[in-house]
């Protein structure tokens, strides 16, 4: 131990700056959030109230609605985005190198756009008036107009659609890179056996991409649980009859509009627990010891 410390101890110096920033700006705030969640904290301070904030959350129908909306949004969006990323990456994989690079860039580039700007565009697309882009487009084939974000029945669907219809550039790039490293001999063997392109995709590509799929599912789920700006911009932070309210939206309003920092921190803890539990389940169900 001492020898190891003597040998490698100096290397901790290199880690120290980053670790210090992590402690100050991530670890301590998270710890403080946990403490706040057990307090009746307002801007003037707070006192310890045990688990009372969590009881309040459990009894609040708006919180239940926010949790339900968040789970529904995450389920639909993650499933659609991972599938879409896989399909798009598979479609561009057989192309030549230049074309593949071009399409990867094409799909990734929109990610540099401001999320607020993107949400504003989607708000316009799903405008309930006949001049909203979605209604205008559907009107050409005799459908609609639909109320979209103007209706409590359709608002969450519109928000989900806005996420689903955005090609997940990051996922496409990751899948595409992973596909490039798959062993060619497996495909050659399958060719010899007379496997169809779909059969090769289904039985070779998809299983071998499982580690990438696991990573994307976990990351996309966490991001979906944190959905905020899309809801805030598209539906004025909750939509008609709270139809699109999500956990982070509720954390925001509870903390910064209602001044209940303790309660908001308790919601953040609940969100953290949800993300952790889901991630563990996803790891257990999707992990594999793929070797090639």
């Amino acid at each position: 131990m001492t020898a190891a410390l003597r040998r490698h101890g100096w290397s901790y110096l290199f880690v120290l700056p980053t670790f210090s920033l992590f402690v100050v700006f991530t670890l301590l705030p998270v710890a403080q959030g946990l403490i706040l969640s057990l307090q009746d904290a307002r801007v003037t301070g707070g006192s310890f109230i045990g688990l009372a904030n969590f009881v309040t959350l459990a009894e609040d129908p708006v919180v239940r609605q926010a949790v339900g909306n968040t789970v529904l949004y995450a389920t639909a969006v993650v499933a659609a985005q991972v599938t879409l990323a896989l399909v798009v990456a598979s479609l561009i994989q057989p192309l030549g190198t230049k074309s593949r690079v071009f399409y990867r860039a094409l799909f990734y580039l929109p990610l540099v756009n401001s999320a607020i700007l993107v949400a504003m565009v989607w708000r316009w697309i799903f405008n309930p008036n006949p001049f909203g882009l979605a209604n205008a487009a559907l009107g050409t084939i005799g459908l609609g107009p639909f109320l979209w974000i103007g209706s409590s029945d359709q608002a969450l669907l519109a928000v989900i659609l806005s996420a689903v219809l955005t090609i997940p550039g990051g996922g496409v790039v990751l899948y595409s890179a992973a596909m490039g490293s798959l062993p060619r001999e497996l495909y050659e063997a399958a060719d010899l056996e007379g496997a169809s392109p779909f059969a090769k995709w289904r039985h070779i590509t998809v299983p071998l991409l499982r580690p990438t799929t696991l990573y994307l599912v976990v990351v996309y789920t966490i991001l979906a649980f944190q959905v905020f700006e899309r809801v805030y911009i598209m539906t004025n932070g909750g939509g008609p009859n709270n139809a699109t309210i999500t956990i982070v939206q509720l954390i925001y309003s509870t903390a910064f509009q209602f001044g209940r920092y303790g309660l908001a921190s308790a919601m953040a803890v609940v969100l953290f627990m949800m993300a952790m539990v889901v991630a563990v389940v996803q790891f257990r169900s999707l992990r594999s010891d793929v070797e090639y």
Partner: protein
Amino acid sequence: MNSDPSLSRRRFLQSLAAVGVVVACGPTAAPTPSASTSGSPAAAKPVSIEWWRRNYTPGSQTAETLTSDGAVKGWKARTPNVTISIQGGPFGPETDQKFDIAILQQKAGPDVFHTTGGDVLKYAAAGQLSEPPLTDAERRDFNPSALQATTYKGKVVAYPLWIVPWFEYINLDLFKEAGVTPPKDGNWTYDEFLAAAKKLTFKRANGKQVYGFAHANDEFAFMLIDGGRLYDKDVKTWTFNSADAVSGLEKWVALAQAKVMPPDFLTLNPNDSQARFLSGDIAILQRPSAMINVLNADKNWEFGKNWDIANFPKGRGDQTAWGGVGFIAVREQQDVDKKAAAHQFAKYLTGPDIGPDLKSQTPPVEYWLAPAGRTSAAGIYGDYHPAKAKVAKMGAFTYVLPNVSTWSEIDQKYMRPARDAALEGKKTPKQALDEVTPAAQRLLDEANK
């Protein structure tokens, strides 16, 4: 793919820490005991005070900036020994939090500041507001409902600045096109209003749809017109499920059922609603007085020819408009010179002298962005425009929301969803308002603790 939302739990805590650091390092004025016992800023002793003003950006041409600079200039001419520095900040939670941290946690910050709604009560409850030394004549001069809205435990804790009434902007061109006579002297009953809105909802030959009426999604004024009020007179009991409130909501629901409002009326934000009125899509728009300046700035909109204003339609109750109140508050502190200077300046900001002072500046500055909260200062607002002259008279029947510190939670979490459910036809007005009552009463009780 979803990008990282702007506020995760981690970001929330980080921003809390960051704001704390910023405020801690900021140029706040910590209370410093003064040897002087003088309560008058008239003494030649130099005094510096800090004025915190939302929406103030040095060098910009925003109305808040121009009026604030003009006010400081006007006061400097009257009291040369007092130096005022202004700190700005946008409307929004980040500025609210800056105020909260400075005033409530650090017991420092502004000597005098603009504030609204529940913040007044919050700061008063924390003992951070210095009670205005008002004479009886001055008390009588203020609008009673505005004064009530700034009263905490029987004491007036800030100076009402202005009352911002909501009323109807009408597009006279569309009225003419639809053959609808504008309300005489701006007065109409609900039935007349509904009939007009129906006639004003039409589709032109070119396919353009015009809607009779619109409001932004922050409204609930219709629930007041039959006499319904949120609380009893002591602000102890939630009464917004009374028969009068239900009847008011039914009138509002009738507008939705008649389809005289655009399909996005539940999510139409204030800016969009104004834009739709300006583009000629909406015949009657319910907005507050600030929109007068927007229309005046547009050469296509000539008052009396293209647009006019009308009162809120009258239901079974007394004539009603609804509105908010802006306040000027003085922070409690030990430095009596600063405190006295701050009170004198606050009186000036809310009093009858500032309007003429700013009007006489070169170029003239229009100080009153909304009708003044006191009678002696009310006249000059109407001097600037005939529409404003009409609005100035509305203060008398404007229902100013009593100040309740938990109001934003009641409104956003419970009232608006209930209102939406009724307007969408998912719940009856009575059912919707009844369902709100327990949560609203609980939050009202909490505010009254």
